[in-house]
C-alpha cells in the first residue's frame, strides 16, 4: 500500500487541497464577480442594481433569507441557466458547438495553478490514519503546481481559451459569431506579443521563471509596478485585450455583432463562456499581482513579519492568502471600472494599438531594461528610484518623438473608386445638385442674434 502511494508527499497533498479550494473559490467567485459587476455598473450609472434576490428560494420558512442586498442573484442566474432548454440551432457543427465552451472554460480553470497564493508553509510531519501512511514534513508551496517553468505555463495556458472562442464562433454557422471568433483570434495573436515582451522585461530583471523568485525579488527591490511602470501598463492593457474586456471586447461587441461568438449559445453552454470570462479575469489579475504588485506582500519595502517570504507559519500562510485575494479583488475592481467608463475601440484601432503602439513601446522598454541590467542595478530603494526615473525619461522622450511623427488618420474613408458616390475622374455625376444654391459654398449670411 505504501509503495503504491509512494508519490504522496506533503507538497502533493497541499497542492491537491489548494487546487480544490481555489477552483471552487473561483467558480463561486465568478458568480459573484457578475454580482459585483452589476452593482458597480449600477452605482456608476445611478441605478440600484440587484437588490432583492435573497436565498429564500420562494419557500416561506426561509423567509428570513429574503433580500440580503441581492446576494442571491448569482445563484438564481445559475439555476436559470441550468433549467433553460439546452437548444442547439440547426445546421451547426454539433461536436464543435458542444466542445467549444469546454475548451474555453478549462484553460481558465487551470491557469492559476502556478500562482503561489500563500508562499511557503513549513509543513509538520504527520501520518494519514487509515492508510497508515507517513508523510514527511518540510517546506511546501501553497500552489497547485509548483513547477519550475512557472510563468511560462501561465502564458501558455491562458491563451488556449481563444481556441474555444474561435471554434464556437465557427461552429455556430452564424456570420456574426464567425466574425467574433475571427476578431478574437487576431486580437489574441496581436496582444500576445506585448504581453510576452513586458513579461520578458520582468524576467530580465528577476532572472528566474519561478513565481516565488519573482516575489522574493520584489520583496528585496520594491514592486515592479514602481520600477517598471511602462511595462506594467502595457501588460495591463494586453491583459484586458486577452480577457476580451472593454475597450477590447470586439469579439462580442453587442452593438455590432449582437453577441459575437456566443450569439447562438444559450443555457449552460452560454454560462460556461460567461464563467470562463470571469475566471479569466481573476486569473489575469492574479498574474498581474504576481508580476508587478509583489504577490502576497502587503506593502512595498515594508517587510512585515506575516507576509514576508521568510514567514512560513500557518498564520502567515493565511495572511498571505488574504493579501493575495485582496489584491486580486482590487485588480478586478479596476478592470470593471474601466469597463463601465470607456467606449469600445474599433477593430482596426485595436490592431493598430497593438502593432503600432504597444509592441514597439514594449520593445523599447525591453532594450532599455537590457542595457540597464547589463550595466548592473543598485539594490533596494535606489533601485526603484533609478528605474522609475528612467521610465519617466523614456516616457517623456517617446511622447516628444511620437508627437512629431507623421500622423495617421485611422478614420479616413477608403474612397471606393468608381462607386456610385465616388465617380471616376471625368465621369458624369448623377447626384450633382441641380439647385444652384447647393453648388456655391458661401457661408451663412444671416446674422445670428447673440445673447
Amino acid at each position, binding site marked *: 500500500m505504501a509503495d503504491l502511494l509512494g508519490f504522496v508527499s506533503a507538497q502533493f497533498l497541499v497542492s491537491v487541497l489548494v487546487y480544490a479550494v481555489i477552483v471552487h473559490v473561483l467558480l463561486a467567485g465568478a458568480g459573484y464577480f457578475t454580482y459585483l459587476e452589476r452593482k458597480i*455598473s449600477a452605482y*456608476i*450609472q*445611478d*441605478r440600484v442594481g440587484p437588490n432583492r434576490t435573497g436565498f429564500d428560494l420562494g419557500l416561506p420558512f426561509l423567509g428570513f433569507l429574503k433580500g440580503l442586498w441581492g446576494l442571491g442573484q448569482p445563484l438564481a442566474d445559475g439555476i436559470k441557466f441550468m433549467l433553460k432548454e439546452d437548444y442547439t440551432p440547426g445546421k451547426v457543427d454539433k461536436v464543435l458547438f458542444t466542445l467549444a465552451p469546454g475548451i474555453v472554460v478549462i484553460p481558465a480553470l487551470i491557469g492559476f495553478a502556478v500562482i503561489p497564493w500563500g508562499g511557503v508553509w513549513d509543513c509538520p510531519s504527520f501520518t494519514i490514519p487509515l492508510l497508515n501512511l507517513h508523510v514527511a514534513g518540510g517546506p511546501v508551496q501553497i500552489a497547485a503546481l509548483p513547477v519550475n517553468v512557472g510563468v511560462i505555463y501561465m502564458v501558455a495556458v491562458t491563451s488556449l481559451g481563444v481556441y474555444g472562442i474561435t471554434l464556437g464562433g465557427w461552429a455556430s454557422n452564424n*456570420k456574426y459569431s464567425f*466574425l467574433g471568433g475571427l476578431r478574437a483570434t487576431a486580437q489574441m495573436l496581436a496582444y500576445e506579443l506585448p504581453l510576452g515582451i513586458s513579461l520578458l522585461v520582468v524576467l530580465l530583471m528577476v532572472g528566474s521563471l519561478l513565481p516565488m523568485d519573482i516575489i522574493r525579488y520584489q520583496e528585496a527591490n520594491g514592486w515592479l509596478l514602481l520600477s517598471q511602470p511602462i511595462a506594467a501598463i502595457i501588460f495591463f492593457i494586453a491583459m484586458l485585450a486577452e480577457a476580451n474586456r*472593454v*475597450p477590447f*471586447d*470586439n469579439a462580442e*461587441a*453587442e*452593438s*455590432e455583432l*449582437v453577441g459575437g461568438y456566443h450569439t447562438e449559445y444559450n443555457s449552460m453552454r452560454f454560462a460556461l463562456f460567461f464563467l470562463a470570462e470571469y475566471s479569466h479575469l481573476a486569473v489575469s489579475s492574479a498574474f498581474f499581482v504576481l508580476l508587478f504588485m509583489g504577490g502576497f506582500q502587503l506593502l512595498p519595502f515594508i517587510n512585515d513579519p506575516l507576509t514576508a517570504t521568510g514567514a512560513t507559519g500557518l498564520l502567515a500562510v493565511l495572511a498571505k492568502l488574504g493579501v493575495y485575494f485582496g489584491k486580486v479583488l482590487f485588480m478586478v475592481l479596476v478592470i470593471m471600472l474601466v469597463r*463601465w*467608463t*470607456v*467606449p*469600445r*475601440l*474599433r*477593430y*482596426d*484601432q485595436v490592431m493598430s494599438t497593438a502593432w503600432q503602439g504597444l509592441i514597439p513601446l514594449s520593445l523599447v522598454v525591453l532594450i532599455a531594461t537590457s542595457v540597464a541590467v547589463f550595466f548592473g542595478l543598485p539594490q533596494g530603494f535606489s533601485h526603484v528610484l533609478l528605474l522609475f526615473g528612467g521610465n519617466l525619461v523614456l516616457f517623456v522622450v517617446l511622447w516628444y518623438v511620437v508627437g512629431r511623427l507623421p500622423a495617421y*488618420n*485611422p*478614420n*479616413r*474613408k*477608403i*474612397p*471606393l*473608386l*468608381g*462607386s*456610385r*458616390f*465616388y465617380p*471616376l475622374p471625368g465621369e458624369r455625376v*448623377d*447626384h*450633382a*445638385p441641380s*439647385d444652384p*444654391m*447647393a*453648388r456655391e*459654398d458661401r457661408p*451663412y449670411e*444671416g446674422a*445670428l*442674434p*447673440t*445673447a
Partner: protein
Amino acid sequence: MPYTLRPDQGYDIDVESTRYLESHPDTGDRWTLNFGPQHPATHTTLRLVLELDGERVARCTPHIGYLHSGFEKLGEALDYNQYVTIVSRMNYLSPIANDICWHHAVETLFGIEITPRCKVLRTILAELARIQDHLLCIGAAALDLGAITGFLYGFNPREKIYDIMDFVSGQRYHPDWTRVGGAMQDLPDQGTFQRMVKAFCHEDCLPAIKDIETLVNRNRIFMDRTRGIGVLTRQEAIAWSISGPLARSAGVARDLRKDAPYLCYADNWDGQGAPAVRFQVPVCQDGDVYARFLVRIEEIKQSVRIIDQLIDTIPAGPLNAFTDSKMVKPPKGEVYGSIEGLIQHFELIMSNRGWKPPVAEAYGCQETANGELGYFIVSDGGPRPWRVRTRPPSFINYQVMAKLTEGHMLADIVGILGSLNIVAAELDR
C-alpha cells in the same frame, strides 16, 4: 451566399453601379451581411444589406418598410383632433413635438391664431421634446460605441420629462395634448408645472449633460471612433435636403425657428410687441459623427435657455383660441351636468358639426429635434382631411445612410446610424 442585390435583369431596387465591386477581384474576403431588422443596433427595425470586403463596407443598401403602419392613410379617416393620437406615434422619442407640429399645420389650414398662453406652453413643451429626443440620441451615441454608462446618464433625466408630460396631459408617453386652436386642457396647476420644469432643467438635465460631456467629450477612444466618421459636407447636406442637427453639423445654418419663425420664436408673438425668445443655433463645419454629437449637446443647452426665458412669465388668459364654445369640448362636469353641454359634446364627437375647414391646401412645418417635420394637408371641406402627407425628417435624413457608410468599417455603421437618429416608426409611417 447566393444573394445579390442586382441580378442582371428585372430587379430594380438599385440600378446604380458600384464598379468597385466589379473592378476589384474578389479575393475571398467579399461577403454579404444582413444587418437587421432584428439587431440591437438598428434601434427599431431598420435593415441594411451590407456587402463587405473584409470588414470594410463596400456597399450598403438600406431596406425600409419593416414598421410601415399606414399612419398617413389613417389621417384620411380621423378628424383634425383625433389624428393627433397617430402623429405622436411617429417620432415616439419626442411625441409632443409631433402633436404641436400637426396642429400647427392644421391651424395654418384653418387660419387660426392661437392665444399667447398657448404659444408659450407649446414652446416650452416643444423644447422639452427636443431635449427628450437629443438626450436619447447622445446617450445612444455612447451606447453604440460600447459605453453603456453614457446611455443611462441620458436616460435618467428623460424620466422627468415623462413626469412633466404626465402632469400636463395625463399620459406619460403619448401626451396627445394639443387640440385645434389650443389644448385639451389647461395646466392642472401652473405653479407645480413651473417648479417641475425648472427642477428638470437645472437639477436633472444640465448636470446629466455635464456628466456625459465629462465622460465622453474628450475621451480619446470616443473621439477616435467618431471624428472623421460619416462625413457629410455642406453641399451634400443641401443637395440631399438634409435638415436638423445633421445639416447644422455639416455647416448649414438652417433652423426653422429662425428662418420661418412660429410660436414664441417669432417677434411680436403675443400681439403686444413681445420679442422672440433669444437663442443661438449651433453650427459645426465637420459634418461627422462627433460634430452631430456636439451640436445636439449644444442644442439641449439652448433649449434650456429658451425654457428659462418663458417659464416664469407664462401669460394668463384663455388657452383656447375659440371664444365661442362650439369648437371646444366642454368640461366633463358640464357634459354630465347640463343638457347644453351634453349636446355640444355629442355634436363635436359624433357629427363634427362644428368643423368648417376651408377647401384648401396647407403646409405647416416646425423644427423638431430631428429636423424639419412638416404636414401637408389637403382639405375638401369635410370634417376629415382629404389627404395628409408627412414630411418626416427621419425618412429624408436616412437617404444619406448608404453614402455615409460606404468605405467605412462595419463597426462604424452603428455609430453613423445612431448619429442620424433614425426613428423607424417615423421613417416607415
